[in-house]
């Protein structure tokens, strides 16, 4: 499933933990990792955050590996790219192909960028895997992010999951009718899918507005915050 990160965020040992502290930890660790830009620190933060995610939040190691592997292809490609095409300084290694060389400068870029991303990913993962989006938005709301943005965000979050179900059904229907058989038909099917979703979404927005209005919506969605169990 594509959105199992949302499921994980709702079902782990830390999902009831104070979201402000989680947001604070994430931002501080990210900023410190970027500011220090130190290889040893990158490794340390990677290990610490991974341990926190795996043992304290008790997230399945398979899901965690999957989370790490998502940006990995892009990361490896761009780092190799940095390694071979961003020469500066002394030549360390010659590939013998079209004069492409590895230099001190490019090796530095490659290693430091790779390690920095590896240090930052678990920090993002700590927030993404343990905190439901609604709580993140709620936090941002009390941190003076305009109310209108938070509201649109919350309404959006609701709608995304409704759409996903519909898309799933429609895509299956299209597939059973050979809708993705060739290149041209898949374009047609995808266009039909997207436009149908958009038209549905317009209807949905109307219904949503009526539903909100009829329940006395005045521009704010009060959310029940359950008391913590001791």
């Amino acid at each position, binding site marked *: 499933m594509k959105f199992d990160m949302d499921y994980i965020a709702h079902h782990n040992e830390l999902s009831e933990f104070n979201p402000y502290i989680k947001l604070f930890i994430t931002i501080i660790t*990210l900023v410190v990792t970027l500011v220090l830009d130190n290889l040893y620190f990158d490794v340390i933060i990677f290990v610490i955050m991974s341990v926190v995610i795996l043992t304290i939040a008790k997230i399945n190691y398979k899901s965690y590996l999957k989370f790490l592997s998502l940006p990995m292809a892009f990361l490896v490609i761009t780092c190799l790219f940095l390694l071979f095409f961003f020469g500066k300084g002394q030549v360390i290694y010659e590939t013998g192909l079209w004069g492409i060389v590895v230099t001190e400068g490019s090796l530095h870029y490659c290693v430091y960028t790779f390690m920095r991303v590896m240090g930052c990913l678990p920090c993002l993962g700590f927030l993404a895997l343990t905190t439901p989006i609604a709580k993140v938005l709620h936090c941002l709301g009390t941190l003076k992010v305009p109310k209108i943005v938070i509201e649109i965000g919350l309404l*959006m979050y609701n709608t995304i999951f409704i759409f996903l179900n519909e898309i799933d059904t429609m895509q299956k229907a299209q597939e059973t009718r050979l809708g993705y058989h060739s290149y041209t038909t898949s374009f047609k099917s995808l266009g039909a899918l997207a436009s149908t979703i958009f038209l549905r979404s317009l209807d949905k927005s109307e219904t*949503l507005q009526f539903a909100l209005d009829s329940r006395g919506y005045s521009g704010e969605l009060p959310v029940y915050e359950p008391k913590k169990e001791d």
Partner: protein
Amino acid sequence: MHIMEGYLPIQWCIIWYVISFIVVAYGIYQIKKIVDETPESKALLAVSGAFMFILSSLKLPSVTGSCSHPCGNGLGAALFGPAVTAVLATIVLLFQAILLAHGGLTSLGANIFSMGIVGPFVGWIIYKAFTKANVSSTIAIFFAAFFADLLTYVATSFQLALAFPAPTFSAALVSFLTVFAVTQVPLAIGEGILTVIIWDRLLAYKPKLLAKLNALSPNEA
């Protein structure tokens, strides 16, 4: 393909955050004005944002077999204008970072700048220019979507070249442009075609809405 978490050095994260913040703040001001005038447009904005998110999670059939997705920012800009699209793109990018590990929090500012500001703004200018010249809106939306998608990646190349200026800024820019922008051309054409198909349906089923949003050329309205 957004810039990932931790990819940019800290000074560039801050610079892009500051630039994006100004534009997004203006967009929020615009949204507030729209919502004050017509309160029922809030749900429309939210649902359009969700549509942008969903569109970016659909896989575009691509020639190279790489995983690529439509940005949807050209369509958003043609419908709502660039400032509002910037705000929607900000929320979409935040969701993508937290729900899909796509992009990141530290690189959020840079990603907003490329996907939420440069792309939609260029798309919007092209769309307005074409419709002002009385070209049919279907052709206009193709070029708007094409350039919005392409310029998003050109902007990304600029950002990366500024962050990694080796051996020189221009050499870095050329390398990044070859990787990101040139390979993106077929995908941008794909997004253009997809957007035209969507637009055709909209034109057939909801012409009144498009006219109300002021998104049609004079002879169609």
